[in-house]
């Protein structure tokens, strides 16, 4: 589904190479985890895939079901099925969470040539999904992410993901800032979306999240490249021994 080939990326503003040849294929129905030390390029990868400004692709490609993702506007990528759960969800004062969700859902439906969802259907759906994530009516009414706790923000990301039903879910350190209960809630939300037709790329520092979201593959990223790939046991190795051994081994 998602094919990343030899992806090289540098910052637009300074001549600094961040990704130095990433190769990765995420198949439908699979969960891939990316782990790696700070500054290895994990978040950059998620931003480049979702279309954030400030990065320049100097070499390589990324395609979703054969379509060139890197050439699309962020909203086109979203409509094509890419979703990024932000590490730091953005606060948008003045825009109600509900308005935001409904605008997003209908914008994507429109882009795909589908009819807009009626207000009643939308309400029903959002209430059901919100309930699973323990998001109350007040959180739906409040401005997007404004005054939300760290855990509430992350749950709100998963709610958006559940409403938008993307093909390719990218989670950027969704576990950061979460206590154990909140992490469980978020993981349950992600697991509920696991499906044969959907791929996941879970970026995390810690193995803990992967106890709840069982990955099919674990990749270790270092200095802009994937340096090692394995099964869930690789995450345990990192948890027990840190990155030093693995990095020494591949050096």
């Amino acid at each position, binding site marked *: 589904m998602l094919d990343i080939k030899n992806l090289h990326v540098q910052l637009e503003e300074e001549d600094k190479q961040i990704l130095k040849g990433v190769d990765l294929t995420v198949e439908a129905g699979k969960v891939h985890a990316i782990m790696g030390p700070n500054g290895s390029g994990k978040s950059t990868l998620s931003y480049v895939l*979702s*279309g*954030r*400004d400030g990065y320049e692709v100097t070499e390589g490609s990324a395609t979703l079901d054969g379509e060139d993702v890197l050439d699309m*506007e*962020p*909203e086109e*990528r*979203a*409509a094509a099925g890419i*979703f*990024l759960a*932000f590490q730091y*969800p*953005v*606060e*948008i*004062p*003045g*825009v109600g969470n509900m*308005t*935001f969700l409904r*605008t*997003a859902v209908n*914008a*994507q439906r429109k*882009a795909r040539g589908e009819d807009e969802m009626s207000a009643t259907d939308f309400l029903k759906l959002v209430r059901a999904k919100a309930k699973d994530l323990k998001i109350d009516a007040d959180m739906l009414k409040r*401005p997007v992410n404004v005054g939300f706790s760290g855990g509430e923000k992350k749950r709100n990301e998963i709610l*958006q993901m559940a409403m*938008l039903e993307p093909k390719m879910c990218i989670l950027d350190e969704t576990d950061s800032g979460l206590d154990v209960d909140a992490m469980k809630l978020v993981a349950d939300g992600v697991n509920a979306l696991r499906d044969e037709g959907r791929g996941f790329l879970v970026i995390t520092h810690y193995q803990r999240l992967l106890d709840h979201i069982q990955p099919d593959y674990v990749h270790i990223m270092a200095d802009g490249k994937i340096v090692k790939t394995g099964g869930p046991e690789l995450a345990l190795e990192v948890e027990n021994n840190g990155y030093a051994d693995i990095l020494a081994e591949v050096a």
Partner: protein
Amino acid sequence: MALPKVKQDATDARLAVLDMPSGGWSDSARQNALSRVRSMGLPSARDEYWKYTKPETLVQPVAPSAATFHSDETPVFGDVDRLKIVFVDGVFDAEASDAMAMEHVTIDRLADAPDIHWAKDIYGELETRGQTPVHRPLAALNTAFASDGVLIHVTGKAPKPISLLYRHEAEESDAILHHVVKVESGAELTILENGPAAARFNKCMEIEIADGGILHHVRAQGRDHQRRAATAMFARLGAESVFKSFTLTANGVLTRNEMVVELTGDDAIAHVAGACVGDGDFHHDDTVFITHDALNCESRQVFKKVLRNGATGVFQGKILVKEGAQKTDGYQISQSLLLDDDSQFLAKPELEIYADDVACSHGSTSGAIDEEGLFYLRSRGIEEGPATDLLTIAFLAEAVMEIEDEALQDEINGRVDAWLSRRRG
């Protein structure tokens, strides 16, 4: 002291084309106002108070013509249950208006009010008080020459809003309207205003709110793009009274809205807010002066301007806290969202405080659209145009939320929405 020759000539030229209506009870106020205009002179570009807004077209003897504009859209407040009072190019239109009667409210026309009238104590009086420390000659001119207006007396809770609707039919029209509103103790009213009014519109509203009275004011200034308007509101608030005013301006080549509020009774509350969205040849000026002259009063000024394609926004806002006005809570914010490099926002926030136990804060910012927020919205599939619109409405929200009534908030948001989608085509 003699006026500078240029100012003298401009004032003479303007006065030469005006006829003072014979107003019975208002005659002495009008004569008084005329002599004040003569001694102050009308505004000129050299006046400090007109540094950011050119007054020439507001002062010149003949109004610059303005094309009228008609659309099939439901006008703002169209769905609100209200008592309509219609002025066409500054002339009362009885046929288009509702019967001027409502429980707890009496309404008279300025033009045909009887010889002795309650408004005599207010007409020109609050306007005169508002001339210190800053001159507002256009308001004095208004008091002297206003040809029409309404005198609204509220003695209890009004069952529905009074809606002043200003239509513009003649391309050369030059209207001067003067309203007086008196809200008695414990009474409550909402006043709505909308419409372009005339090619050039000089409007003054004097508002006296007795102890415990409440007045809400929500205004949407008309779409006719070439129109010009200079408006002034003078409000005097008694103890525990509430005055909340909001204005949306979405078009108009030149608009100057002055607001002068005096908190004279303890525990009074005054909120004045404005949102404007300007595109291209658009100049909008909010000039606000709030005086705290009693204990424990609260005032808020919230002004937001969205500007693009070379539009200009001006904010001059002052909080004056007089000696003894302890426990004053004053807040003032003026912000602009500049959608391109050609637009500009000029702000002059001022605080002048003579009491030592007060909380006053003020802030003024100018900024572009929040790129982080924009990316967040786009990453969820919302196109750049609609995402920018969402952020624009969000930017204005703090001002719009100052309107207490949610249905009226929706009316205003609907207008902003329509404006944004017209711009997007």
